[in-house]
Structures are given as structure tokens and as C-alpha cells.
């Protein structure tokens, strides 16, 4: 885990959204690491230990649930908070996310503003726990 609590991993297979989210978070002062799919996200997380991961659920290969589960399964990455981005609307999808170990979720379409405030809230909670 990095000493700077402002590194955020963002993973989405949609390049436009990836850019949009990165732009917003960078503007808010975070260091953003981006990944285009689940496998990449997992690799970056293991290598860089970000303070937070924002993962899209529907990604080719490893989906968001799977990435979350693998992060939780590895002691080195188990502590990384996860926010899932989902276009799914059904309750079952949300509960699946929490079962996998996610800390929060956002429904698409989401406002980048809202994402920023959720990220801030979770990181603030983390630092106060610590």
C-alpha cells in the first residue's frame, strides 16, 4: 500500500468513461491509475497497491465482481476499498457486488461529481480508521 493515500485505480473497458473518470479524479487531486480490463486492473493493484479501486462490473475477461473477489483473496490487496460501477439495475446485481467484497457501488449513468464525493467519503473513512 502506498504512503500517499490519494492513488486511485480506475478500471473500465469503455475508453470514454475511463478518461472521463480519470480526468475528474485527477482534477480533484488524486493520482489515477487506469486499466482497460479486469486482468490489467488486478495486475496494477498488485503492483501499486492503490488506496482505492473504482471497477466497472461489465468488463471482458475478468469482470468487476471477479476482480474484487481476487483482491480480497490476496492478503496484500485485501484492504483496498472497492467502488463498483454497474449499469445493471437489479437488486441481485447490487447484492452480488457486496458479496464479492465491494464497499460501495454507483449506478450508470452516474454523475462524475457523485463519483468524486463517494471516493472522498471512503478515503476519509479509511484514514480516520487508520
Amino acid at each position, binding site marked *: 500500500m502506498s504512503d500517499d493515500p490519494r492513488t486511485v485505480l480506475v478500471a473500465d473497458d469503455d475508453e470514454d*468513461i475511463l478518461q*472521463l473518470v480519470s480526468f475528474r479524479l485527477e482534477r480533484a487531486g488524486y493520482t489515477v491509475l487506469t486499466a482497460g480490463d479486469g486482468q490489467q486492473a488486478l495486475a496494477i493493484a498488485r503492483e501499486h497497491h492503490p488506496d482505492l479501486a473504482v471497477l466497472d462490473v461489465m468488463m471482458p475477461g475478468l469482470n468487476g465482481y471477479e476482480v474484487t473477489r481476487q483482491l480480497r483473496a490476496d492478503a496484500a490487496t485485501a484492504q483496498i476499498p472497492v467502488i463498483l460501477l454497474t*449499469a*445493471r439495475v437489479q437488486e441481485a446485481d447490487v447484492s452480488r457486488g457486496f458479496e464479492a467484497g465491494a464497499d460501495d457501488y454507483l449506478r*450508470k*449513468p452516474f454523475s462524475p461529481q457523485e463519483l468524486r464525493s463517494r471516493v472522498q467519503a471512503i478515503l476519509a473513512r479509511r484514514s480516520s480508521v487508520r
Partner: protein
Amino acid sequence: MFAVVLSLVHDARDASDRLQVSNERTSTADRTLALVVNLETGLRGYVVSQDETFLQPHTHAIAALPGAQRDLLAATAGDPRQTATARELVDKSSAYLAWQRDQRTLAERDPEAAAELIATGAGKRQVDAVRALVGELVRRETQDARAEREHLDGVTARAITLATLGLLGIPLLLAAVVYASATRVSHPLQRLARAAHRVEEGDLEVRVQAAGASEIAELGHSFNAMAASLAQAREELEVHNEELEAQGAELEATVSELELEQARIQTFHDVVSAFTSEVELDRLAPLLLSKLRAAAGARGGALYVADPVAPERGLSLRETATLDPATLPGRLTPEAVETHFDRHLLLPLASSGRPMGAVLLLDPISNDFSTLQRMADAAAVALSNALALESARHAADINRAVLETAHDAFVAVDADRRITAWTPQAEALFGYSEWEARGQLVDELLLPERWRATYRAQHEELLEVGMETRRFEVPALHRDGRRMTIEVSVSPLKVGDTWQVNGFVRDIGGRVAHERAREAQRAVSQALAKAVPSEDVVPQILEALGRTLRWPVAVHWLPDPLADDGRRRATEWRDPGFEGDELPVSVKIPLSDGPAGFGAFEFWQRRRVPIDADLADALDSIGKLVAEVLERRRAQAEAEQLKNEFFALVSHELRTPLTSIIGYLELILEEEVGAVAEDQRQFLNVIERNARRLQRLVGDLLFVAQVEAGTLSLDRRELNLESVVLDAVQAARPRAEKAGVELVAETEPLPALDGDPDRLSQVVDNLVTNAIKFTPAGGRVTVRARRQSGSAVISVTDTGIGIPEDEQDRLFERFYRARSATDGEVQGIGLGLSIVRAIAHGHGGEVSLESRPGSGTTFTVELPIPIHEVTR
């Protein structure tokens, strides 16, 4: 002449006096006897019947007897012999009176003991002694009186003759005296003459003033003496009359006794007709016993009756009265009679020399055995009839039971071929109930038309030949029109003087198999009907078929290329009651023709029973049906899967680009990437507004799809409905202003509600948006939120164009658009109201509308307030 008359009159008076004394003695003796008899009968009547009215004569006799005794003693004074008898009579009757007093006390305290004592005849003996004494006394008096009466009759007759002659002579005598004595005596004579005239008229009390000249006075005296004598004579005549009257009374008593006898005969007759009019043993038995017991005055009784079915078993106890049946022997045997019935009167009831029963009467009072025996004879005849009826019934029951337990159906017809008997088996075989079948022509009811003539010929032939049994096969029709083959075994029978033909009928066609096939099909249909769509239906079908056809083991095989024999055991059902080894024979039912079908069912039979054509057909069609059902279910599941995938796709593929569009627009509009010129901002706003509209549309479509799929989930929490409504109204204000419509909110604080705030906000938003759309500029939209009994009510009222009545019902349908909307090119796809309704229903609420074209519409949403909030 007067002297003669006077002497005669004197003589008559003496005789009459003696006669009167004699009468007095007889009547006082009789009265005493009558009282003694009253004592005896009164108490006996009371003891037998327990009827208080019998005690009235008894009470009276006790009070009157001493007086009667005194009178008797007084009357017999002067005749030593009669006095002695009277004294003895008084002693005996006094003793009896004392005995009766004790008896009565006993009777009131312990009727049974009193009855026993009466039965000993002790009282009766005393009465008989009194009766003998009275008889003696009366006989003597009668002898004396007869002589006196004859004498008196003679004297009286002579005196009357003379007196009459005298009376007739008086006027002549008087005329002569008048002639001789001229005026001196004329006045007294006139008086005398008037008196004589009155005597003539019957006034014997008249007396003449004996004054005047001496002869006249003498004459007056004589006249007076004569009149007195005549008066006396008349008195005696009256006494005589009274005697005659007494005899008349005696005659009356005899007549009433005869009437009593007639009443007894009538009673006997009534009892006998009551017996003979009752033929039901159950009712006759108690009747016999009660009548015979009453006639005998018995304390209790029992009736033993022969067994109607097996008379050789002897007489057994049938009925008791006031006796405990447990204390009586069940069978009437000579030993039982000796040991049990020493105080009983045993009346045998025999008819034509055969014992039908016996009546036992405990402590009977009557000793009129001849009457009792006559009644018993009548009872025996009635009993014999009742037993014969019972026996006939029993025989009929046995016959019926035999016919009804037989394997074959039994049908009887009369000589005209009309059905007279029809057993339950016949009903089961042909489908007609007994009342439907009876009276019908058998060939018309049961046989196909072209077989009827054949049957009629057989029928006629049988009747001609008489005793013979024939067996033949014939097609027959079930009530439901189904054809079957029956085997009939018929034989004619003469009943009385008419013939009938009895037939035993058996189904030899495939009726049973047919029935099994039908049941199997029915069982499968029921299992399919009951099955829940989402569950595997195969186990239910296996069980239904296995149970119906009594095949205890069933397996559903599915094709499996990897398995050794190319199949695998998918489902197995076993009858829980079946414990056994491998069964030898199995029946296979393929579930489709092709190789990739749904495999096959296999059932194991307990025994090797050939599958008949009917059942094979049924199983074949069941196999096809099950394959169809499984195919349909598979298709449904697939469609369900596709639909879910489609929704996932739509939501992801539409929302992801929208997310980008709106996200980047926001970025630009917030001038994160540089300043935006005013006209640029204006166009970007247009893009954003339409992007948002598209976003809402996608949301609505997904929402409706969720409702359809039954997967709508509400994020319910405690909420303040008033503020939800006010926020939604606030959000709609810009739109209202733009449309030139006044938007008014009239709300009141509402109890906390359990609901999804976003969805409820959507309800208000949809309704308000609609209202604004359909209200011309200058109109008004009012949103109200208030509490109404147990509900929170939100209503949105507009002053718009209204909704025609024929459209109101369809308005909440999905994608339905009002004509005014399509005509006026109002934007929308017709989902808003169906979403409102789905959300209201999701909250347990309801939505309704009220509208008059031209003057506006009110939509009302009613949401239930939780009970704990209602009572708060």
C-alpha cells in the same frame, strides 16, 4: 161402614209399620255391606293403579261405616234374632274397618307390600264373611216382609174400596139430612157440604167445624175421623210407593252393572284390535306387554318372544316393564321358570299350537283368568303375524345382501321386459341408478338397436320353456354411450302367478382396461395442472402414474452420450409402501421420437400383466403429452433467459454511452476544460436536456421490464411523504412556468410512511408532468397531499382538456396513449401512468382518476399508512 173402614185402615197401618221396619233393617244392612265393599275395592283400585280417585270411596266408607252400623242396630231392635246377627255384622265390619285403615297406611307408604298383602286374599275373606251375614239378615227379613206385604196389600185394597164407596155415599146421606133438618142445620150443613166437596177434590186435610146441633156436630166428628183415616191411608200408600221406587233403583243398579260388563267387553275388544292392527314387532312387543299387564293389574312384567329367523332356539327376553332385564333369564326354559318366576303369572302365547312367546306378570291382582287368557290368545295371533313379517323381511335382506355382494350385476325383468330389480353392481356397470333403471324396458335401455329383437326372442322363448338357464354374449351400451360386451346368464322364475326373468350380467369387454387408461390420463393431467411452472414436473408425473397404475417403481431416463449405456437416471420414484427386490417386468414410455428428446419413463410392474391396447394407447399419448409439456417448459425457460439477457444488454449498452455523453457535457459546462461562450452553452444545454430525456426513457423502459418480470424491487425506508411531494413539485416548477401553467401545492403533514422515496417522487413527477402537458396555458395544476382515514392520499388536479370516458380504463395500460396526446403531438411513449400504477401497487396502494372532458382531470394515489402510524 165408617167403623169398618177405620178398622181396616188401622190394620193396614200396623202392617205397613212392620213392613217399614223390615225395609229399614234390609236397607241398613245393605248399606253397611256396600260400605265394606267400597273399602275393599277402593283400596285395591288405588294399589293397582296408584290413582288417587280410588281413594275417595274408601275415605267416604271409613267415615260412614260407624253411622251405618248404628242405624243397623237401631233397626233390628225388637227382634232378638236379627239383633244378634246385626251385632255380629257390626263386629265383623268394625274389625274389617280397622284392618282397612292399616292397609291404607301401608298402601300409601309401600304400595308393593300392600299389593302383596291384597294378593293373599285376606281382605276378601273378611268381606265375604260380612256379605254372608248381611245375606242371612236380609233373607230373614225378606221372608217376614213378604207375608206382611201380602197382608197389607189385601187390607189396603179393601180399605180403599170402602173409602171410595163411603165418599160416594156422603153426598146422598147429606142430602137426606138436609131435607130432614131444614133451616137450623142449613149453615153447618153447607160448610160440611163444602168440606165434602173439597175432600172429593182430594184435600184430605180438610176438617169441619164440629159445632151446631148435636146430630150435625156428630156428623162433623165422624167426617173428621174419616178424613183423618183417609189421610193416614194415603201416607201408607206413599210409603208403598217409595218401596217400589227402591226396587226401581235396584233395577237401575243391575242395568249399570250390565253396562259395566259391556264396557269391559268393549275394552277387551279394543285391546284385541290394537294387537291385530300392529304388525311391527318393535312396536307390538311393548304394546302386548303393557295391555296384558294393565288387564291383570300386575306390578311388572316381561315378554319372551320366539326368534323370527330360528324359532327352534326357543323364547328369549324381548321386553320388560318395571323389571330390570338384567335380573331376568335371557331364555325362557323350564328351569328358568322354576327358579325365577314363583310370584309370576305365566301366560303362554301360542298360535296354532306353536309357541310364539310368553308373558310373565309379576303379582297380578285380577283373577279373571279367562279374560286374560282370551287376551293372550289374541296377543299370540298378533305376535305370530309380526314374527312372520320379521322372518320374511330377514329372508328378503339375505337375498338382497347375496345379490349385492355377488361379483356380477343382477337385473330382473317382468314378463313385459320391464326392469324390476337393479343392484349396485348394475349401476356401476351401466351407469344408471336404480330409480332410473326400474320400470324401463331392459332391451331399450341397455342394448344397441339391432340387438333388441334378438333379445326379445330369447325372452319370449325362455318364458315358454320355463325352468332353464341360458348364457349368451351381447353388446351393450353404457349410459355415457360407450359400447361394451356383456355376458348374461338368464333364467325365468315364477313369482306368485307371474313370471319374471332373472339375469346375472358381467362385463367381458375391455371396460376395466379402458377405465385404467382413462385414470392414468386423468392422473397425468392433474399432476400437470397442479405443477408450479418453475419446478420440475417429472417427479409428480412419475408418482401420479405409478400410484394410479399400481406400478411401484418409476425412473426417468435422460440421454447421456458419456454414460456406458447412453443414458442416465434423472429422476426416480418409489412407492413408499414398496419394499422389495428387483422387479422382473418393466414398461417403457418414450418421451419423444427423435434421439435428442426427453428420454423415457420406465415403470416396473409387480406382476406380469399384459398391457392391453387401450392402456398402450393411453401411455403412448401420455408420453407425447409429457414430451410436449417438457418442450414447452424448456422453451419458456429459454425465453425467460433471453429476456433477462436482453434487459442486461439494453441497460448496459444504452447507459454506458449516456454516461459518457452526460459526463463530458457536465465537464464542459462546468468549464473544467476552458471557458464556454454563451451561445455555445445554450446549444450544449439543448444536448444535455435531450440526453437526460433519453436517460429517463431508458430508465422507464427498464422499470416496466422489471415490473413485467416481477423483479421490481423497491428501496423502502421510512420517509416524509409531504416533503417528497413538495420536492417533486419544486422540481417541476420550471416546466410549469414555461408552459404558462400555475402550479399549486396544498399539503399537510403526514405520518411517516414506509416507501421508496425515488419511486414515489417519480409518481408525483409523472402525474405533474402529464397534467402540465395536457393543460393549456393559463390553466392551473394543483397537487394535494393529505391524510384520509388509514391512507395518505396524493392527488393532482388540472384544468386541462379532460379524458373521454371510453379512454379512462385503458389509460394505465403500458404504451397506451390518449387520442388527445397523439392528435396534439404531445411527447411521450405511454409509459408514465403504467409506471405510476406499478409503483402504487408496489407500495400496496391504488391509483384512480376522475375526469370530465373540457373541465379537467384529477388523478388520485392512495397509499396505506402502516398500522402503528395510523394509531399514533
